[in-house]
């Protein structure tokens, strides 16, 4: 039922895009995306060949009475697997056939039979069941983290870009790097309490300098974003886990609670991972928005709007932000990749049993087929989203259509 609704929505969107952007253009883009999708999945399917052992393993397998190419199945099923099980698996996966038949079989199962295969070969758990259970966690994590990132990045980016060309005032410019450096030093040698105190003081001063405006506000925002960008997600995650879950018991690592156990419980179980993932995405959006807006602010049409006497707020939000939004949406789409990376790490750190930690488990158990399917699904989602965003442009930004037409 839901699948049908989604399909209808998707077809409707495609129709609207074809109407807005011209059918030829839409077809070209969607066709290109489909080609990439096929190539990606095919490459992923081909890579399974590497799991075949060398000649001696193949010989050993043949001696055991199973197919020469059954190495992936043997690994997935474990050493105690029976010959029948291995043979069924080889048949199922088409390991004895050539690459194209294998690929055809796999995609037929995925697309036509809508059978994702098994999540764990040894106990026969279905991947679709695993996803039904785990995917919501990852999805909520994505959603919250992106909201946090946007809520932080958009106002700060606008403010920072707006202040970039203005006169500096307030604190000396070295205050910010020095303050952050001091927090790090005290954090290591001074213990939790002093660090927190000092961090709060520095944060207050930073907030003041950011809100006081001027060139320094821009410099400081930019510096903070730059530092945040350079912190690996796992370092950020561990630091926060230490501060909020180990040293202070503000966040309990008791696992994910669904919405059905109440909104409060739900948020309590997920806020810290969401913040970590959100903070990791914030500097990307912030810096991009800022760069784009600074570029737009230097355009003549901004002077024209100013000469018309329009207020700065109006110019920023109506004239400058709109073309920049296009860029921001693009980056949101492209950043899905980074989000997936981050989710794997964050779920691992906070024991959130989502798709990310499933991947780690699947790796540990050598579940080639499940990892292959997930890689294909994620790639498909990524390509689809970005193509849609790409084509959506033509509706939002008239310049792109003008380019595409010519």
């Amino acid at each position, binding site marked *: 039922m839901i699948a049908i609704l989604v399909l209808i929505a998707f077809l409707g969107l495609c129709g609207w895009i074809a109407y807005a952007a011209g059918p030829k253009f839409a077809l*070209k*883009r969607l066709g*290109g995306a489909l080609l*990439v*999708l096929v*190539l*990606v999945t095919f490459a*992923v399917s081909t890579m*399974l060949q*590497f799991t075949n052992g060398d000649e001696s393993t193949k010989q050993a397998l043949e001696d055991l009475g199973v197919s020469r190419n059954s190495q992936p199945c043997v690994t997935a099923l474990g050493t105690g697997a029976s010959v029948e099980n291995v043979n069924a698996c080889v048949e199922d996966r088409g390991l004895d056939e050539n690459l194209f038949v294998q690929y055809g079989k796999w995609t037929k199962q995925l697309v036509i039979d809508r059978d994702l295969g098994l999540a764990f070969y040894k106990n026969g758990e279905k991947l679709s069941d695993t996803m039904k259970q785990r995917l919501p966690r990852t999805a909520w994590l994505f959603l919250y983290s992106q909201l946090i990132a946007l809520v932080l990045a958009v106002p700060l980016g606008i403010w920072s870009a707006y202040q*970039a*060309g203005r006169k500096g005032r307030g604190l000396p410019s070295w205050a910010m790097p020095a303050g952050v450096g001091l927090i790090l030093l005290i*954090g*290591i*040698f001074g213990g939790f309490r002093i660090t927190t105190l000092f961090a709060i003081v520095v944060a207050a001063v930073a907030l003041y300098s950011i809100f006081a405006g001027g060139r320094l506000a*821009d*410099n400081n925002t930019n510096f903070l974003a*730059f530092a945040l*960008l*350079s*912190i*690996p997600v*796992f*370092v950020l995650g*561990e630091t926060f*886990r230490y501060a909020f879950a180990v*040293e202070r018991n503000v966040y309990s690592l008791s696992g994910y609670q669904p919405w059905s156990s109440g909104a409060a419980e739900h948020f309590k179980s997920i806020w810290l991972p969401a913040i970590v993932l959100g903070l990791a995405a914030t500097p*990307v959006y912030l*810096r991009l928005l800022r*760069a*784009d807006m*600074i570029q737009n602010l230097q355009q003549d049409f901004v002077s024209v709007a100013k000469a018309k006497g329009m207020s700065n707020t109006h110019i920023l939000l109506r004239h400058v932000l709109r073309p920049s939004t296009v*860029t921001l949406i*693009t*980056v949101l789409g*492209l950043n*899905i*990749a*980074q*989000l*997936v*990376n981050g989710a*794997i*790490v964050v779920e691992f*750190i906070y024991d959130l049993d989502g798709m990310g930690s499933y*991947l*780690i488990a*699947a*790796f540990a158990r*050598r579940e*080639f087929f499940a990892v*292959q399917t997930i*890689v294909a699904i*994620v790639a498909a989602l990524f*390509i689809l989203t*970005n*193509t849609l*965003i*790409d084509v959506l*442009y033509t509706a939002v930004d008239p310049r792109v259509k003008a380019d595409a037409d010519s």
Partner: protein
Amino acid sequence: MTNVAQEIAVGSQHAAEAQAATPGGDGKRRNVLFGLAVAWLVAVVGIVVLGWIFGESLPGLRDPAAINQDAINAGPSWRYPFGNASFGEDVFSQVVDGGRISLFVGFSVTAIGIGLGGAMGLFAGYYRGVIDGIVRLIINVMLSIPALLLVIFIVTIRGQSLANVILALSLLAIPALARIVRASTLQVADREFVKAAEVLGVKRASILAREVLPNVMPTLISFAFLTTGIIIVVEGTLSFLGLSVQPPTLTWGKIIAVGRAKLDVAPHVVAFPSLVIFLTVLSLNFVGDQLLKRFDIREASL
């Protein structure tokens, strides 16, 4: 996916970010920070390389696996500046030892990425046509799988080893750098001096080598720094998740992964390697970013 989205986000996010220089800017502070960043990089690479060559004969360095009953989970001291781990191992020596793999992977993957990806981007951007189509398709295909997922997939099917980690990370770096170099080459190839050389009948290959390459070089060097930083982070993440090289080989990520179990009693075991990674990546990013700004001719003429 002939992607307007990706064209607009030219090359990578960094490219747009690099153009975000505030008009004017305060150069003095930037110079000081640039100096600090370079100094940190030189120090880290220097200490790791010295530790590699001289090992424990160097003062302050010990066997990173040596068990010390008297200093289990002990905090930083003058003797053990980064403190001790759960069997009393010297964390400082571990960081120096782990730096080998982390830095080696970072540099070698960047070298491979620059070599192969750079060449791909250069040819695609200059010769256009079929080559460009193929390279763009390869780039799009490779970049449509999230980095960590691709690396996990490759390591899953090929097994954990240094060579496989480098291979997997190279598969990330090559298309990313190819895309950046391609965008940069397209810009350079459009400039008058290249057109002039073409009109004069200079051979295309020699134009590519003499006119285009030197002008793409600055971008390439800047992104070499940025890429090294990213690769160090990804390798650290892999190690952290237990997917990188097999134990007992140490890397920065692995020290953190081991230390996180004892975060309540020995936070310094996680803190110091984290700090080293952070500062190293920050320095690499900062140097790359500043170089990108300094090389940007359009900006310099302002």
